[in-house]
């Protein structure tokens, strides 16, 4: 076996170890590479910035453990911004794991004095996918009569004046697949014309772009990097920002793999 074909057939475990090191070392010893802010992230930031204290924002938490590392930090960062602005947060989920992530976020703000039912509420999980999103969008109190914690939503101060999705000052869908932003756009944004923004798992970003370009989605956080940019915008760097150096080295490693693999492939073809 020639050197070139040996190089092409290197043990995959060697590659795994290189990737692990490229990610772990900068996590432990950050390099401090500067991060520029994408206009799409700024759009979301400005939407939140334009809200008034007392407005109610709906966060639709539509992700699972599989996508959570890419999306949950976005929800955490946006919630922090909403908290600072004095905006009220309602949460709902069309994925069954969603409410648990909602509880993780709410716990922190309840400890800081926000009152459940007045400033924040977790409306829980609604089964039924696309149909559920439509039903919720058209009739919020009728669809979630009881919240995640088993309390009646009727009479909660935060739910006062909320009839359909148009009564939220902004709806942000944090999403790692279907049902998610597609369904929100076609079942609620289209017919009702709500203000809709999204935080998407990186993999879904390209598919969401036509909605952004056509103005159906007003702002988009793009995966973990979107969360990191948001953390920097609100001046509270968190786990997402801490991971960006590792993202840099990880990308470099993958690009190097593609280059070396292809150089060996092309040279090998020439030799043959």
């Amino acid at each position, binding site marked *: 076996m020639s050197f070139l074909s040996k190089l092409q057939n290197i043990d995959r475990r060697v590659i795994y170890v290189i990737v692990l090191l490229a990610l772990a070392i900068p996590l*432990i010893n950050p390099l401090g590479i500067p991060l520029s802010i994408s206009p799409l992230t700024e759009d979301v930031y400005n939407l939140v910035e334009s809200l008034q204290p007392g407005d109610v924002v709906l966060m639709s938490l539509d992700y699972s453990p599989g996508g959570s590392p890419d999306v949950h930090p976005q929800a955490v960062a946006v919630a922090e911004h909403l908290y600072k602005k004095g905006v009220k947060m309602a949460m709902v989920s069309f994925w*069954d794991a969603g409410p648990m992530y909602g509880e993780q976020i709410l716990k922190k703000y309840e400890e800081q004095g926000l009152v459940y039912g007045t400033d924040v509420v977790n409306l829980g999980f609604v089964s039924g996918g696309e*149909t559920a999103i439509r039903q919720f969008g058209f009739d919020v109190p009728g669809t979630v*009569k*009881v919240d995640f914690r088993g309390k009646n939503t009727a009479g909660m101060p935060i739910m006062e004046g909320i009839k359909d999705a148009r009564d939220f000052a902004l709806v942000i869908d944090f999403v790692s697949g279907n049902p998610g932003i597609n369904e929100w756009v076609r079942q609620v944004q289209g017919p009702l014309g709500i203000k809709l923004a999204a935080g998407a798992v990186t*993999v879904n970003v390209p598919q969401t772009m036509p909605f952004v370009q056509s103005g159906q989605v007003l702002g988009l956080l793009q995966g*973990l990097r979107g969360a990191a940019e948001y953390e920097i915008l609100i001046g509270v760097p968190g786990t997402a920002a801490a991971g960006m150096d590792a993202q840099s080295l990880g990308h470099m490693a993958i690009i190097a793999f593609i280059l070396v693999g292809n150089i060996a492939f092309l040279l090998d073809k020439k030799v043959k």
Partner: protein
Amino acid sequence: MNISSNPWVWFSAFGMIAIFSFAFKENPIYRAFEHLYVGSAAGYAIGVNIDNIVKRAIRPILQEGEFVLIIPIILGVLLYARFFKSIAWLSRWSMAFLVGIGSGLSIYGVVNSQFLAQIRATMIPLNSVNNVVMVFGVLSILLYFFFSMEQKGAIKHSASFGRWIMMVTFGVSFGNVVMGRISLMLGALQDILGGWLGLLG
């Protein structure tokens, strides 16, 4: 180093390392944790949905007398008829209900938001390179997926332009997937290195 003293954290760190070990070699510990994950996710979903049934159907029936909700409960129970050969056909009534609602709903949503809205957004003046790429990119890809016509001459060239645009589209997806996958690994590493070993500041 500031190792966690929380037994839950120890358990989850051990579980994650066990799952990662699959990449290096398939092994019994991986298989045990894989089955634990599959079982727990399925069990979790059952708990969530029983809660939904109780809150949305059973309580309204018992406490508010909304007896009409017995119909969806029957439809729901009928889904399980498929596990009994003699009455398996009954489960089709429930499927027909779910699929009918889904189709009716999606026709409207798809035509409105993914068809007309996107056509409208493509009706842009041909006054810049970007706009020309956008309009002719969309047109030539639609042409590429035209099946009842042989692709010859000008049509062939135009459709092949469409295929090239798609290749760039797929390249963009590829690049995004890389970032997404690294994010997932970072999340796990932050839990292991930070949450468990206390190595991260």
